[in-house]
Each structure stands twice: as C-alpha cells, then as structure tokens.
C-alpha cells in the first residue's frame, strides 16, 4: 500500500470536554491514484489532511507513506492550501524554487527543476512576476508547481479551487486532470464540491460528519474525462448518490446537535 491511513482517530480537547473529530478512518491509496475525500463542513476533512501532511498528529492510528510512518511535515507530501500561500516578496521563480532552497539544493539544480515545473503548469513566462500580479488560478498553479518541484510521493490538496470563480475552477479541473495523466502523480484532495470530486478522481471517500467517518468508498468509472462528461447520465448518478450521502449526514448531524 502506497499511502495508508490506518484506523486514524483525532480528538480535540475543548472546554466542554473531548470532541471527536475523526473516528476510525481507514483509507488505502495506490500509487498514481487521484483520490477525493468529500464531506460537508464538520466532517473533519481538513483535519484529516493535516494528519497526512504531518502538521498535526493523530490521537490514535497512523499514516504511512511508502511504508514509512508520518511523524511531521515534509516535502515528500507536497501540499496546496485553499488560501494563497505564495511568498509575496518572491517572484514566481523564487517561490517555485523555495522548497529546494530549504532542502539545501544548489542554485543551478533548483533553478533548472523549478523552470521545468513552471513549464509543466504553463507559467514559464511569468517566472519573474510577483504573486500579486497573478490571477487566483495562476497563483494556485504556482503553488502546485512549488509542491511538485520537491517531487513528492503524494500531492495533498485542501480545497484548492474553493476560492476560484466557476470558470477558472473548470479550467483548473481540466488542468489537474491533464497534469495527473502526464505525470503519474498521486493526488489526495479534499473538497465539499461533489461535481469536482466526481470529475477529477478515480476513487472517492464520502465522509460522514460529527464525528468524521468514512461513510462510503466509491470507484468512479467515467466513459471519458472531458468537460461534457458532466452531462452524461453516469456522471449524474455518481453525483446524486454522493449528494444523497452528504445530505443524510447533514440531517444526522443536525439531529445529533439538537
């Protein structure tokens, strides 16, 4: 198993007692998969991603990547955040190189690699621009290039297109699919956008809320991954199934909260 999330639970201590955010999550992900974890708010999906990234440690259970237990953050799990996290004082090129610089890679090697990945995301000609000169979609593409430059085993994405307008979002979806197919990347993405998940992933984990649990695992088989597949009946079936799963969970959560 390439990326293993093994019976992971996460509790937070609050002043009202222990809050169980994630309960007994198990996921098995193979190399080269595009996985989406879909959940409504309260499903703990961001918390889950933080455990994989190593920004936070699970209460029980563990995350293993390529057989190794995750003990902290590292460049083998590149991360793209929902909010723009480019360094505003660095050019696009410097941003893309920065991970390698932190890892002590010599200047020429990191410049070459950063240029390569800027080319992959189609932003080579913006290498000398500052982040504030880029659109939202371009910023996220730089963030992806920055993560890829370290050649991570898995790319973690925290609702990376959530802040983008609908048209930019759609073109980013096509960009991601293209990137995934070209690079044999393993992607683990969390989102609340059901259509986004169905369109992008080959497998989806639907999360229930309060506490976050894996409600269902769905393998997505679409006839093609083009924009117009969103009108295909199979696409609708997947979407409706997931919507139903998330909706019933929302109601359960409401009932539980009452």
């Amino acid at each position: 198993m390439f990326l293993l999330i093994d019976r992971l639970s996460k509790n937070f201590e609050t002043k009202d007692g222990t809050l169980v955010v994630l309960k007994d999550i198990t996921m098995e992900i193979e190399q080269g998969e595009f996985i989406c974890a879909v959940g409504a708010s309260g499903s703990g999906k961001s918390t889950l991603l933080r455990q994989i990234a190593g920004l936070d440690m699970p209460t029980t259970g563990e995350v293993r990547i390529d057989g190794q237990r995750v003990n902290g953050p590292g460049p083998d799990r590149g991360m793209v955040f929902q909010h723009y996290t480019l360094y505003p004082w660095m050019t696009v090129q410097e941003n893309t190189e920065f991970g390698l610089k932190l890892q002590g890679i010599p200047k020429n090697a990191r410049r070459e690699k950063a240029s390569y990945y800027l080319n992959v995301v189609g932003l080579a000609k913006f290498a000398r621009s500052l982040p504030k000169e880029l659109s939202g979609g371009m910023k996220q593409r730089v963030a992806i290039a920055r993560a890829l430059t370290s050649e991570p085993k898995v790319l973690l994405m925290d609702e990376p297109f959530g802040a983008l307008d609908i048209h930019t979002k759609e073109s980013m979806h096509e960009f991601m699919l293209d990137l995934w197919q070209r690079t044999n990347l393993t992607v683990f993405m969390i989102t609340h956008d059901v259509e986004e998940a169905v369109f992008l992933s080959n497998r989806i984990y639907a999360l229930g809320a309060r506490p976050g649990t894996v409600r269902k695992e769905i393998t997505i088989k679409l006839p093609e991954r083009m924009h117009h597949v969103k009108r295909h009946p199979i696409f609708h079936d997947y979407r409706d199934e997931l919507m139903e799963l998330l909706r019933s969970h929302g109601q359960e959560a409401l009932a539980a909260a009452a």
Partner: protein
Amino acid sequence: MSLSSNVTPSPPSSKSGFDVFWRLAEDIPKPLQTTLMVASIGLPFFLWWLVTTFGTVDPKFLPSPGDVANAFGRLWSTGELLKDIVASLWRVGVGFLLAALFSIPVGVLMGSFPSIRALLEPLFGLMRYMPAPAFIPLLILYLGIGEEPKIMLIFIGVFFFNSLMVMDTVKFVPKDLIEATYTLGGNRLQTLLQVIFPYVLPGILDACRINLAAAWQLVIVSELIAATEGLGRRISVAGRFLKTDEIFVGLIVIGVIGLAFDLFFQYLLRMSCQWANQKR
C-alpha cells in the same frame, strides 16, 4: 407602468463641489488634492503673515515670518544652529538605533514564540504606560547629566513601544504561510529567518517610522532640561531671553527634520518592499 419611465439619471448633485469634497473613502480629483495639500501649509503661514503685518501683535509674542527668517540666517551663519542640529541628531540617532537593534529581535521573538510573549508582554505592557520623561530624574541620578541619560531616555521611550508593535506585526503572519513552509521541508529556524522575517519587514519599518517620531520628541524634551547644545536647548535658552524668533526657528527646524525622517522611512519602505506596496 413601463420600466423605462422609472429610470432616472444619477442625481445631478453628485457632480457638485460639495459632493466631491465630502467623498467618503474615495479618491478625489488630483488638482483638488494638490490645492488642499498646498493650503494645508500655505494657509496657516498666510494667516501668520497677515496677523504680524497688519495686526498689532507685540513681536515679542509673535514674530513675523521675516523676523524668523532673519533669526534663522543669524543662527545659521554663526554655525550655532548647525551645531545644535548635529547634537540633537546624534542623540536621536544613537538612542533610536540602540532601541531598534534590541526591540526588533525581541519583538520578532515575542510574536513568534508564545512562551517569550508570556514572559515579556506583561512587563512591557506596564513599562509602556510609564511616560519616558518621568524617568528623567532617575536617569540623572543614575547616569549624571552627560549624553548617557539622554540616550537612555530615548531608548526607554522607544524600546517597549517598538517591541510590542513589532510583536503585533509578527502575530499576524498567516499560519498557512508558515505551514506551507514546513510542508516544503523548512525547519523552524529557516521559517523564522526566511519567511516570517521578510514577511514582517514592512511592518517593522512602519513601526520604526512611528517610533522615530517619539524618539525625536524625547530628544528635545531631554535637552530642555539639561544640555549645553541641541535644538531643545536652543529653544529653552531663547525662551529665557525672550527671543521668540529663535524659538520659532527651533520649532520649525524640529518639525522639518521630523518630517524628513518620516519621508525617508516611507521611501525606504517603498524601495525595499515593493511587493507590499498597496494603492492607498
């Protein structure tokens, strides 16, 4: 009722001068802005000239602009004024640099590490509310009446404020930016030096700009009390001999130098942190 009959052009009053002047948080036309800015300095100056030329004010109370210009020429030609300026600038320079040298790292550490913040913030918060001039008797007692108490006064007046202001800018570094650095393989020291510090640099420069104004006030205060030269000393001596024109020279020179400091820091900020330039 047809829709079009309800469509009215925007109210004509929006074009009136009144509306342009009272625009809320919106740009005003450039010529109006320039006019107002010139009037800001020019109008009080004109009134001053008007009162002293056509009024019946005793020049011992209010010298005319001409008198002040003459006094300036007199003090400048003897070299006294330059000596005073240099003395004051030296004190403020040393005192402020020392304060900045210590307060910037301390502020960055306080903003970055909750432990250091807990250790220092209560003390600094208390010290901040003790007006620096209130330390003058103690400083004279401890350090005599030479340069040391004056420099120390500036240090006390700047250090605590600057530390706390730097701390605040560091506290607002987005957590995502720090975590992104960890996921790229950065350790804590790299994150502090290569991410947090450059991110807060504009904020630090701005804090320094504001606190330099305080340092400049304190140097004058310290010289009013005990000094052999300096702009504050010049004013205090002029006051003793009722040389109101020299008091005015002192005040204007102090103001102009202070404004020059401010503009210098604004320039520094624009040059060193172009990424942070926002349209204001």
